[in-house]
């Protein structure tokens, strides 16, 4: 298993798509910067009462899960589209260990990159806010935990992408699913009656990481429930993928 993780780690590192995705996550920092700037200008002209920047993470929160999901997609979809999966599978004992090794390296890379991105986003937002009372500070407990749970969200998104790509075996298919799935709760929320809409909108990955950090008004669930749902996503992503990779002809 350690051998397989080393192998998959090298594969992920030597894949160009990995670097494209990581570079693209910087767009979240840039977007947050712009949004924070615009909110700061509003504050300067209209005074308090408008939106707050807070940690800044919320301003671009929808972006990282999609991008880290892509990291997971590319970790296996290239093997399927080129057919290299056949070569890979001839070299290993059982197929599910391959999936587990891929999940481990994707989760690790997404967690580290997602964490770094969250810090970069936070500090960018605070730099733009420049001391106005609309920002946040690590002195507040929830601000730090909100940043620190972002890595977990990125890891879950990465594994979700990996699972989708394994089941669908198609890069475009997995990418489409990756964009549509996170949007689904936001769309459904508008149609559902009272407690349901709140629950459904609390199911998105960015919302769950905030609930995990016990950020006030982040959603319907407490940290424990949020953690359970996030773990549930990982299991729900990997179970069908394991069944698929084990039972289908490669």
């Amino acid at each position: 298993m350690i051998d397989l993780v080393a192998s998959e780690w090298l594969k992920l590192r030597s894949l160009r798509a990995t670097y494209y995705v990581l570079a693209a996550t910087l767009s979240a920092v840039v977007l947050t910067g712009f949004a924070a700037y615009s909110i700061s200008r509003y504050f300067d002209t209209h005074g308090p009462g408008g939106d707050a920047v807070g940690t800044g993470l919320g301003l671009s929160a929808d972006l990282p899960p999609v991008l880290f999901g892509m990291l997971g997609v590319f970790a296996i979809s290239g093997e399927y589209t080129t057919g290299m999966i056949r070569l890979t599978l001839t070299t290993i004992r059982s197929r599910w260990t391959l999936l587990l090794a891929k999940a481990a390296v994707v989760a690790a890379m997404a967690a580290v990159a997602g964490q770094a991105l969250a810090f970069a986003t936070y500090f960018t937002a605070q730099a733009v806010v420049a001391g106005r009372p609309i920002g946040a500070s690590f002195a507040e407990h929830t601000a730090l935990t909100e940043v620190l749970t972002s890595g977990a969200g990125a890891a879950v998104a990465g594994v979700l992408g990996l699972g989708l790509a394994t089941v669908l075996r198609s890069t475009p298919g997995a990418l489409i699913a990756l964009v549509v799935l996170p949007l689904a709760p936001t769309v459904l929320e508008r149609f559902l009656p009272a407690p349901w809409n709140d629950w459904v909108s609390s199911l998105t990955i960015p919302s769950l990481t905030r609930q995990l950090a016990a950020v006030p008004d982040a959603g319907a669930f407490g940290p424990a429930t949020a953690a359970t749902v996030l773990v549930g996503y990982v299991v729900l992503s990997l179970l069908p993928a394991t069944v698929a990779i084990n039972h289908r002809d490669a």
Partner: protein
Amino acid sequence: MIEVTELTKRYGSTRAVSGLTFRVEPGQVTGFLGHNGAGKSTTMRMILGLHRPTSGTALINGVRKQDLRDPMREVGALLDAAEVQGGRTAFAHLQALAYAGGIGRRRVVEVLEEVGLAGAARKRIAGFSQGMRQRLGIAAALLGDPGVLILDEPVNGLDPDGIRWLRTLLRSLAGEGRTVLLSSHLMTEMSLTADRLIIIGRGRLIEESTTADLLARFQSGVLVRSPHAARLSRALEAAGATIRSAHDAQAVEKPAPARPTNTAAPTHPSQSSRLGEEPAHARPAGTKAATHPSQDFRLSEEPVPGRLVAAGIEARAARDAGGEELLVTGLTAAAIGDIALAHGCAVHELVPRRTSLEEAFMEIAK
């Protein structure tokens, strides 16, 4: 050792492989032949545990591929050299595979050198030529120094040096007691490389025998060029041979002339053994009687294009050199020489002709 038993694979309504049974023994290079779509790749994919057989079993060293303890060290495979991710360098590609089997960096360097890609190790695979990819695929198969090698058309795209190198490599690997199964459509190369042949058609076994036995069965006579062709012909026919002049062989459209009655089946192996030609090979042990093609195989009635082209070239050469050329079946070159001497006929050329594997294959796998 590879054992395939009653292996069947259906894709929807397509029967890719039907009740296939054969063994690939260690210490030999075994060639896997069959027309496009015959089921070679499908069989290999099942042996390698990539596709699940509809029924039957395929075992490597007595167990299914999925049950091998250390797959990379037991079996190495090249299925399709194009199936690699181009963004990686050759080194990273092999290193990633090597890690999975707990194989060190030294071995990666070693195989890169062995396949002649040491200079391209740090280049991205996307820029590789077809032959370079083929070499990379062979390198991947060799990584674990496995006892069983399964190679699907490894020769494609290799240059003449590469082909010769691969032939030498596979023969030496088999010489070390390894099991080597390879498919190819390049018959000349196959006849040089493979000790044994497994021929399939439409997913079924057609023939399983040694290369030598197979070719011996399709022995196609001796070419004799003599300025006394007419006299020699009569003498040879009297000795029981069948004679065709090179002109008959040349005439592609024209039906072959009626054969003398005393030589009913000149290519039948039992007859050639009676005439002292390699009796040990006359009836191959592994050959199934039911699929034995020689009974309904008539050399002169169903001309094979390849043979006629060859015969045409030889006939032209004979014309250029003067003298008439005869194609003699039913006698060995030695017997022909003795008869010629006894009858005082000069012989300018006496060449035993072996049917090429291509011709034999075309005949068997029609």
